[in-house]
């Protein structure tokens, strides 16, 4: 009995809707216009969310990684008076979403005409990218910096895709042998990971591996004792060369017994250790681009905040 009445009820509703009453028309209109919009939103969210571009920030402790991230964050926040916080030694990694300033050219825009109106719209939707800051302390490098690099560079997930590595160096400290050695050996490890990845990709699949370029950000150029970027490059190349030579002669790890021979993979650059190491040759052989640009996170008080990081932002823009 109840089912019968329900049926009648349904029938009554259907009749009512088809009667041409105002309610029926309203429901029909809502469905007609609402469903496409709804579908659009659903699929747009699912498909068109652009693969986020990640950049990994590496470098020895005290190079200015956290300060840079904080500066970029503050810059891209809409605060009236941007003021970056002081920083200390990091213990954990952080992920920060940062906006690229409009004035910085983006690689994907290079085919656009100068008069393209979409360039003007840049103000409305600024390009966002993500920077992952890692601690540079010797004990935390392996567990947080390098493993992060490894997982991000090999990950299939587009969300985690790595667009580039920024390796920060304190140019004021690098004139001392100790700091130089520290920075160079870290850079050596980073490049080794990237090299292994590049070689593995070349082996396993023929498709062009999305290369991960490296920017060596020569920080603290504002200081009086800072070395110019050119001589930083020379110093790093020389030191990496020395590391390479001594690594090729060094002892095996205890794990090598179990893991089997890893062979020549462990040496950066060309197999022939006699050659001197330069970033240029490394690029030719392995296909990993290494650039070096000077800048300063701090020390531009009178101008706009963060003027010293402009060249690094341009590099980031070229990778987007």
């Amino acid at each position, binding site marked *: 009995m109840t089912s019968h009445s329900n049926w009648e009820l349904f029938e009554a509703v259907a009749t009512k809707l088809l009667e041409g009453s105002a309610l029926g028309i309203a429901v029909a209109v809502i469905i007609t216009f609402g469903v496409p919009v709804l579908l659009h939103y659903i699929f747009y969210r699912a498909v068109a969310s652009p693969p986020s571009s990640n950049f990994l920030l590496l470098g020895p402790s005290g190079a200015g990684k956290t300060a840079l991230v904080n500066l970029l964050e503050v810059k891209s926040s809409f605060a009236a008076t941007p003021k970056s916080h002081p920083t200390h030694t990091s213990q954990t990694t952080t992920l920060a979403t940062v906006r690229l300033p409009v004035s910085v050219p983006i690689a994907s825009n290079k085919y656009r005409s100068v008069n393209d109106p979409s360039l003007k719209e840049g103000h409305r939707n600024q390009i966002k990218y993500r920077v992952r800051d890692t601690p540079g302390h010797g004990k935390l490098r392996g567990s947080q910096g390098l493993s992060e690099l490894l997982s991000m560079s090999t990950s299939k997930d587009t969300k985690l895709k790595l667009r580039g590595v920024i390796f920060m160096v304190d140019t004021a400290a690098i004139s001392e042998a100790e700091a130089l050695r520290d920075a160079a050996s870290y850079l050596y490890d980073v490049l080794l990971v990237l090299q292994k990845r590049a070689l593995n990709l070349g082996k396993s699949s023929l498709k062009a591996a999305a290369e991960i370029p490296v920017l060596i950000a020569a920080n603290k150029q504002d200081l009086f004792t800072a070395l110019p970027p050119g001589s930083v490059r020379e110093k790093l190349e020389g030191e990496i060369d020395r590391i390479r030579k001594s690594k090729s002669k060094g002892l095996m790890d*205890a794990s090598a017994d179990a893991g089997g021979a890893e062979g020549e993979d462990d040496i950066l650059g060309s197999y022939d250790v006699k050659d001197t190491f330069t970033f240029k040759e490394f690029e030719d052989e392995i296909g990993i681009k290494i650039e070096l640009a000077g800048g300063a996170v701090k020390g531009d008080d009178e101008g706009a905040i963060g003027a010293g990081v402009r060249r690094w932002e341009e590099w980031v823009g070229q990778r987007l």
Partner: protein
Amino acid sequence: MLESFEILTTSGVVLWSKSYTPVGPHVVNSLINDVFIEEKAHLQNTTNSASPIFRKEKYTLKWRRSKDFNLIFVAVYQSLLHLGWIDKLLDNISTIFIDLYKDQLKSERARVVEYPFDKYFNQQVRELEDNATAGLDSPETPAGVVAARKDPLVSSDNGGPPPPTVPGLSRAQPEAALGAATSDEGSPPQTPDISRTSTPTSNHILTAKGGPGGRVSRRQRKAAIATAYASSGDEKARKGKIPKSGKKLRKWDADGLADEDDGRVLDYSAPAGEEDTSASAVEAVAEDSWGRRTGKGQFVLKDLGDEVHSILENADSEKTKSSAPSGLVGSGFSAIGGLLRNIVGGKVLSAADLEKPLKAMEDHLLKKNIAREAAVRLCDGVKQELVGKKTGNFQSVDASLKSAMESSLRKILTPTTSLDLLREIDTVTNPKNKQATPRPYVISIVGVNGVGKSTNLGKICYFLLQNNFRVLIAACDTFRSGAVEQLRVHARNLKELSTRENVGEVELYEKGYGKDAANVAKDAVEYGAANKFDVVLIDTAGRRHNDQRLMSSLEKFAKFANPDKIFMVGEALVGTDSVMQARNFNQAFGTGRNLDGFIISKCDTVGDMVGTLVSMVHATGIPIVFLGVGQHYGDLRGLSVPWAVNLLMK
């Protein structure tokens, strides 16, 4: 007094800080490096308070960590002063800060936004300092009081954005009026301070200004104290004042409001209307709080105090609530929920949850031949890290404990700077700059009897020979019969091997038995320098680490031979004793000289029980350089941290 107070995240960004005198960033950095990352600083636990302290230069640091928000609260003060209230301050500030900015800290912009926390902080400092100095008649009281007096002015100067509304605030307001009569410390303390620093007329103004009637008796008492300062204690007070006045002025300058605000605080007789207009002209946003303050005198400050108190009380009551056992039904439910959570994850870990797994973990570590002391400390560290944390999705307590222990082991074993012996030898023997003269690189090897010093020396020698170095072996074991002959055999074998493979060169330097080892070592180094050797390897006599007489000769040895590297050989077989061995040898070389690395021998004999690695590094914080894994010259390996962690966690 307090030098500086900082609130920073574990990622290294300082969210809020206040410094009374400039303290270099390296002080806090070294706290992070030594305590949080390397965990090597042996913290001096003060007798009654459980909180650890860290000393750097002339400063003492105390800290609190908040795990939920990854925050660290650090207080820096001069080691000369004994400030008993710092612990309380840290506790209160951490509670208040987290309560006030809970939402902002959780948001993405946590590292960007400003935290207008100054007045809450000042209120706390003032209150705690007042409490501390109230009952004291110690000679340092005037200085303390002066410091305390300074703060009310500062806090009223700052007048930052209005405080965020807190639920407890409205409820607490009625109490403010009551509390004003009894416990208002705000207005009276200003009297002595201003009378000394600013113009003498201000004193007159202050006394002219009458407080609310209820305060009279207290004011009289305070006035009596103030006059006591002014008359009898004048010299004392000035002495305390002089070094501080400059500091104070600097701070006011930074605010840039000093003069104007002085007038505002003091000049209560002036009509309030004028004050209001000027305030609104300067700062439109804060007009509300300004107006209230000028109208009611010190009541705004009082509200702040009550707000802070209510936050603290809420936190306390919540703590007691959570610790108090609920009824039978409730506990049953929570037990079931806990079980479910254990499977599904998302459980907030408490000390009780961790007790049993931690015990099991400790047993496991002990079975791996880790010394008890090291195992206990590891477990404590992991426990502190985990309590209050949420387990991940579908992660049981055991799993999260295991991953935490793994990362903790990895952290302990990873050296701060990786040692590249060949490169170091290269820089010493072929220096890049012209000033330094080439000299041989000196390595000496020490250890307990029978751990394999000579064998490992032979292995290192072989390794160096492979790299075409000229090596001199110095036989400085002038004590045990057969020691020199043993080395002679090694040298002969190695010489034959090196000539066969046409690499390197090796020679033995010996002076027979009975001589003083330190002198022999010194002569050997000189001989090596004269004959252009690249490396001098010094073998020493084995000695028991608890034998004072034998150990004391090591100091002289280190001074005479001045080795670039001192390696200690420890065997993987040794158990609990490894901690004491490492510690005693590390301290045996006098001040300013420590061990540079460990060689753990006989690793092939223990299978996966390689706990000695952890015990020795734990005791000293000195990295492991080589592992001996067999009887042959080639059986020397570098340490691979993942390998060791794998074995230990298996």
